[in-house]
């Protein structure tokens, strides 16, 4: 892909949250939520960001939207510095859908007001015209016109998420950030929402950044996947490459840990020892070395691996000893 197609670019983005303590609230430590992430998002693609809780995936999403300022690094939207773009223009270009639709929709606003609010704020339409536009939007997400004057509590979780999606689409953005949009939904409803998102992408040529911890969902919906661990991207690849031949030991373990609803297991299960370390004091060298079954002392705990493109095209990995072609992990002893 050529660089003209890049809609959003992150260059060495860092976000440290200060931890204040002591007599005069001095900043003593930092939570290194996002610690040097570089990523290009191309037009029309779906890029999945996966990782366990506390790996910084949500913070990264909020940085992409300009909701929080970055500590250092650059974020470019259409080759323009995100910080310099006026807020209004920014929101017309990028919108978001959050995890809990019950929490992201005002319970006292009718569907008309909730979905129509962006249109009112930007003075795009009002009155009857607004009704018409909102009805169009509801139709797009598969809801009926008579839902227009109802309140959020009258809807189920899946329907609320549809309303949230309709609201995000109101300003016709090109970029949509989806932060765990299906985590709060039941399986049968999750499938409906995922299908809807795919249809919308095709219809409006949307670019999605899909943040989730569910690897099976990411595999289904994404074109490319970035795996995060403790504030860094450890592996970035096309979805098929990543799932068929993961190169980072963490990715490998993560994929093998997903319980699958089949009996014939071809995958060998790798059980990682211990917990994710604290992002306040991340381990030296490679951040995964404390849990990695193939870590070599003297290298992995000293030298930090960089995210470099490997032999196959577009497959980047940050590991000193990447798993190449069928090299699998030794099964860790728990």
């Amino acid at each position, binding site marked *: 892909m050529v660089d003209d197609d890049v809609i959003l670019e992150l260059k060495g983005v860092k976000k440290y949250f200060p931890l204040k303590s002591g007599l005069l609230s001095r900043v003593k430590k930092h939570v290194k939520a996002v610690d040097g992430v570089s990523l290009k998002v191309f037009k029309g693609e779906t890029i999945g960001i996966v990782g366990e809780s506390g790996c910084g995936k949500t913070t990264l999403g909020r940085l992409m939207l300009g909701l929080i300022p970055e500590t250092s690094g650059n974020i470019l939207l259409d080759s323009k510095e995100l910080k310099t773009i006026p807020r209004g223009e920014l929101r017309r270009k990028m919108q978001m859908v959050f995890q809990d639709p019950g929490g992201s929709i005002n319970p006292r606003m009718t569907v008309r007001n909730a979905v129509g609010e962006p249109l009112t704020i930007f003075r795009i339409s009002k009155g009857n015209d607004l009704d018409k536009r909102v009805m169009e939007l509801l139709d797009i997400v598969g809801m009926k016109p008579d839902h227009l004057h109802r309140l959020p509590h009258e809807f189920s979780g*899946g329907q609320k998420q549809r309303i949230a999606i309709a609201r995000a689409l109101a300003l016709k953005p090109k970029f949509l950030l989806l932060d765990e949009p299906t985590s709060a939904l039941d399986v*049968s409803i999750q*499938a409906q929402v995922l299908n809807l998102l795919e249809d919308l992408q095709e219809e409006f040529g949307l670019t999605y950044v899909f943040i989730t911890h569910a690897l099976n969902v990411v595999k289904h919906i994404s074109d490319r996947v970035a795996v995060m661990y403790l504030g860094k991207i450890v592996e970035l690849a096309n979805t098929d490459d990543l799932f068929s031949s993961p190169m980072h030991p963490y990715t490998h373990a993560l994929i093998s840990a*997903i319980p699958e609803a089949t009996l014939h297991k071809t995958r060998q299960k790798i059980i990682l020892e211990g*917990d994710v370390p604290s992002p306040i004091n991340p381990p030296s060298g490679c951040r995964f070395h404390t849990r990695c079954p193939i870590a070599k002392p003297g290298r992995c705990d000293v030298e930090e691996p960089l995210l470099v493109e490997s032999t196959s095209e577009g497959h980047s990995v940050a590991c000193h000893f990447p798993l190449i072609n069928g090299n699998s992990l030794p099964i860790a002893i728990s």
Partner: protein
Amino acid sequence: MSNDSLLRVENLRLHFPTDEGDVRALESVTFDVDEGEIFGLVGESGSGKSVSSLTVIGLSTGVIDEGQIFFDGEEIIGATKERLRELRGNDISMIFQEPMTALNPLYTVEKQIHEVMLQHGKLPPASSAIVERIYLQIRGQISNIYSKSLSILKDPRNARMSGNYLLLVASLFFSIWLFSNYPIISIFLFATILLSGLLSSINTLDTEHADAIVQCLKDVSIPNPTAVAKMFPHELSGGMRQRVMIAMMMACEPRLLIADEPTTALDVTIQSQIVELMKDLRNRKNTAILLITHDIGLVAEMCDRVGVMYAGSLVEQGTIEQILESPRMPYTIGLMHSIPSMEETRDSLPIIPGQVPDPINLPSGCKFHPRCPFSDDKCISHVPPVVDIGDGHSVSCHHIDKTADFNSVQDAFDELVTILQSGGDIVG
């Protein structure tokens, strides 16, 4: 169905009365769990899986309309509160989804496990009397202070290690001043301090007990159990908390462990650790586990037998092989298809149209009929009976004859989706 099963729930019907009407949480639920077996109850939110498990240990607040629950041949519904208290913990234990809310944030891990063991009389005999322990505690404190002050006297730089000693010296001077000026007040003060010291040393555990607790923690593979025993819940990570919960529940060696979404709040890599741990416990101690979850993948990983719940009814039940390979209830089939798979890639996900019904206004007849491609008049008017189709595989459906082929059922679902969409009806 064997008569000698450990837990047997028979024809359980239960509702919660509310102002808007009765919430029909359970409609004739029948299942049994054998000794040493892992039985899974799967279903979406509101399907009644948690209510079933709470009723088993007598914690449900719903009104039981009919049905019986037998634990080891003994009727649980209608048992006295005292008997239920005896059963809970001793024979049946439960672990919950969110370990942080289930653990008391004010007490150390050690103290909480101690309480459970004390309540159920599972503590080993104490090696020392309370007086002895208090004496040891005080002697330990004094020798501690003595050795610290000795090291400070030897080398004053040692004092810098801790600001507390400055405070100690200051308070020493203060107490001398207080005693010389207000002797009565100071005597009261010292007595109080001494008393609170005594009280806190009563709280220290007997060494035998502490060892038993450490052994419990070791059993659930907690690294460094002696240190963890002295920690508070907030100092532990989610996976560790869940391990502590399991250790606490296993402390009394129950025969049945009810696990209500034990790994939902945990990350996948931690989840697989907990799954291995629970399987290992079952193998070592032959504990039966009733696993409540919405995750079919987890069920496939852990369970021997599965029951699928929908809107308060147990719609299908069988061994894990039967349910995963040849499900016969349309709901089960649709559910399995709609999970994004790790192994195959599909363009769009097959879906079940519609949504889970409102438990106050449950559909008549088969609860699944508004979403089912095969529904006809019979489905609307009659609740389908539970039919055993061989080898303990039971299904509750009027149209078992149409559901033998896995893929044709999904085609029927897809057709229904198209019909509903063209009719302007909302899907979901």
